[in-house]
C-alpha cells in the first residue's frame, strides 16, 4: 500500500512562518512565463536597454536568445568588469557531515542510498580547516546533509566558530533554518547563506522530495528571507537546472532574488547554477536537458539582469568551461574541492554527494585565473 504523502505546501510545526508574499508573486509570474513568445527582435530590443527589466530577463532566457549568445556574452563581459573589475574570488567548500533525513530522488546523499555516512568531530573539522587555510584560501563554505538529528544548528555553529578563526569569510550551505537559528549561526561567524530551491515547480518539487522536512516547499523558499531577518549579509539563490523546466526555474530564481533585493536593498545577492550531473539515482532523470550552451545562456541572462550579483561557477563543470566563464559572467570559483565528508586533511569520512569535473588545486586554479589576465582574490570581506 502506498503511504500517503504529506502536503508539501503546508508548514510543519516549529517552522517559522514569516510575513511575506514573495512566493505567491514568484509562482504566479513563473506560471505565466511563456518563453516561446519571445522573438529575436524582443531579445535585441532588450539588449539595447541600459538596464534590463524582468520582462527583458524573460527574453534573455528564451530559446530565441540562444541565437544571440555572442552579443549577450559581449555585454555580460562589460557588465562584469564594470561591477567587479577583473577580480575573481576563490573559495572552497568543506562538507562536515552527510547524514540526511530526506529522500530527494536525484541526490547522492539521499537517505535510502547505501553510501558511507560520516560526521566530522570538532578536532577533525579543525584539521580540515587548518589544511585548507594552508593553501592560502580565506573563504570557506561549510556544508552538511539535511539532518537536524545528526548535524543540528549547534554542531554547525561550533564548526562555524572554528572556521571563523582561520578564514575571513565563512558561508553555510545547509538545510533551511528558522530566523533565530540564522541569528545564532551569524553570531558564530558566518555571514553568507546559500539555499537552492532545486526546482520552483511545485508539482515537480513534490515528486522529487517524497519525504523528509525538505519536502516543505514554502519553508525552503523563504530561507533566504529568514536568513536576512536573522542578520545574514548575503544570500545565494539557484535551482538544480534540469530537474524541472530549466528556463522556468532560472526565471523564478532570478525573480526571487530580485524581489528579495528590492525588499532588503542591503542584502548581497549571489547565484550558483548547478545542473544535473551523474548521480547514483539518475536513471529516471534526464540529465541532458541543460547543455553547456543553455547553462551559459542562463548565466549570461543573470549577469545582464542583475549585474551587481555575484555568480559562482561550480566544480560540476569542466575546467575549460569554468576558465572561460570567469570574468564573462562568473565572479567566484571554487578550488581544491573535495565533496566527500572531510578529505582535505585526512581521508574522507563519508562518500561524495556528486562527481566533480574540475579537481584542480588552489594553486592550479589561481594560475589559470592569472593566465587569463584576471586577479585571483583570496579575501574580499572584513568582518567587523
Amino acid at each position, binding site marked *: 500500500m502506498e503511504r500517503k504523502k504529506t502536503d508539501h505546501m503546508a508548514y510543519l510545526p516549529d517552522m517559522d512562518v514569516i510575513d511575506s508574499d514573495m512566493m505567491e508573486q514568484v509562482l504566479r509570474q513563473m506560471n505565466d512565463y511563456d518563453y516561446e513568445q519571445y522573438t529575436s527582435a524582443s531579445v535585441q530590443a532588450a539588449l539595447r536597454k541600459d538596464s534590463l527589466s524582468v520582462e527583458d530577463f524573460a527574453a534573455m532566457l528564451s530559446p530565441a536568445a540562444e541565437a544571440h549568445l555572442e552579443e549577450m556574452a559581449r555585454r555580460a563581459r*562589460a557588465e562584469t*568588469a*564594470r*561591477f*567587479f*573589475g*577583473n*577580480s575573481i574570488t576563490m573559495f572552497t567548500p568543506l562538507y562536515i557531515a552527510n547524514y540526511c533525513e530526506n529522500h530527494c530522488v536525484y541526490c547522492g546523499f539521499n537517505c535510502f542510498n547505501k553510501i558511507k555516512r560520516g560526521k566530522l568531530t570538532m578536532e577533525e573539522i579543525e584539521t580540515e580547516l587548518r589544511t585548507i587555510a594552508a593553501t*592560502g584560501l*580565506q573563504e570557506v563554505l561549510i556544508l552538511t546533509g539535511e539532518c537536524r538529528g545528526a548535524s543540528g544548528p549547534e554542531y554547525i555553529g561550533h564548526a562555524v566558530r572554528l572556521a571563523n578563526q582561520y578564514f*575571513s569569510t565563512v558561508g553555510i550551505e545547509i538545510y533551511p533554518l528558522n530566523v533565530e537559528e540564522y541569528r545564532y549561526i551569524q553570531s558564530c561567524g558566518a555571514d553568507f547563506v546559500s539555499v537552492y530551491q532545486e526546482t520552483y515547480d511545485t508539482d515537480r518539487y513534490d515528486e522529487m522530495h517524497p519525504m523528509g522536512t525538505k519536502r516543505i516547499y514554502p519553508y525552503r523558499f523563504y530561507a533566504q528571507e529568514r536568513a536576512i531577518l536573522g542578520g545574514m*549579509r548575503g544570500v545565494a539563490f539557484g535551482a538544480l537546472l534540469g530537474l524541472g523546466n530549466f528556463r522556468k526555474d532560472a526565471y523564478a530564481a532570478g525573480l526571487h532574488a530580485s524581489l528579495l*533585493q528590492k525588499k532588503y*536593498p*542591503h*542584502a*548581497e*545577492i549571489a547565484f550558483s547554477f548547478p545542473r544535473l550531473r551523474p548521480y547514483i539515482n539518475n536513471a529516471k532523470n534526464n540529465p541532458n536537458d541543460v547543455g553547456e550552451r543553455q547553462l551559459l545562456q542562463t548565466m549570461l541572462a543573470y549577469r545582464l539582469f*542583475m549585474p*551587481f550579483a555575484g555568480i559562482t561557477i561550480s566544480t560540476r563543470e569542466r575546467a575549460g568551461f569554468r576558465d572561460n566563464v570567469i570574468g564573462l559572467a562568473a565572479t567566484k570559483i571554487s578550488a581544491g574541492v573535495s565533496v566527500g565528508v572531510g578529505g582535505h586533511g585526512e581521508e574522507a569520512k563519508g562518500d561524495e554527494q556528486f562527481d566533480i569535473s574540475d579537481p584542480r588545486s588552489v594553486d592550479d586554479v*589561481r594560475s589559470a585565473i*592569472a593566465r587569463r*589576465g*584576471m*586577479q*585571483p*582574490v*583570496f*579575501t*574580499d*570581506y*572584513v568582518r*567587523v
Partner: protein
Amino acid sequence: MNDMLMIGGVSFCSRFILGSGKFSLEDTKKVIENAGVEMATLALRRANVGGEENILDYMPEGITLLPNTSGARTAEEAVRIARLARSLGCGDFVKIEVIHDSKYLMPDNYETVKATETLAKEGFIVMPYVYPDLVTARALRDAGAAAVMPLGAPIGSNKGLLTRDFVQILIDEIDLPIIVDAGIGRPSQACEAMEMGVDAIMANTAIATAGDVALVAKAFRLAIESGRAAYLAGLGRVLEQNAEASSPLTGFLEE
C-alpha cells in the same frame, strides 16, 4: 607655480587619486607610475596581511594609502573598519564608504556623516564619499571632514559628470577640497571636471576596464593637469545663445 592640493594638512602635487580594487595587482606599480599619483585607495577587505595576493604588498614606497571602508553598511561598521586599517599601519587617512544598497551602490549620506564625526574626533583625516548634496556637505564640514568626495555618476558607470550642477554648488559653497569620486569614465570627463574647479579626481573602473591600463593612466594624468591649468588660467569667456548688443545698454548714464 606652487599649486598644491592640501588635504588634512598634507600636501600633494598630484590631483589624481587612484582606486586600486579593480585591476590586477601586478599592474599596480606601473599604473601608479604612469598616473603620477601620490595617493591610492586600498579596500581593507582586500588586505590579506601575511597571506596571498595581499594588496598592501603591491603598493610602492612613498605612496599615501587611502584605506576605504567598502563593505560597511552602517556608520558603526565604517568606524570599526577605519580603526582596523589604522591598526594595520595604513596611516590616518580614511575614505568613508557606507553603502546600504547592493544594486546601485549608492552611498548612505546620513550614516557617512555619523562616521565622519566619530573618526574626525579620533584624529583620522576623513574623506567621505557621498551623493553630492549641499546639506550633507555642510554637515560633513562641520563634523570635521578633510575633503568631500561627491560621485559624478553611478559607480562603475563611466558616464562622466552627470551630477555636474550639484558638484558645482559644492565647489562654490564648501571650503574643502572637492574630489569627484565615481563615474568618471574618460580623460576628457576628468578634464572637464577639473576645469570647473574640482580639486582632484578619483578613478578606478575607467582605468581597470581600459585596453591598456598603464597608457590610460597616463592619459588621465595629462587630462587632469590640463583641466587644472585651464581652471587656474581662467577660461576665456564663451558667449552663449545671442551675441551681446553692440551699443551699451547703460550708455544713458551721465555720471
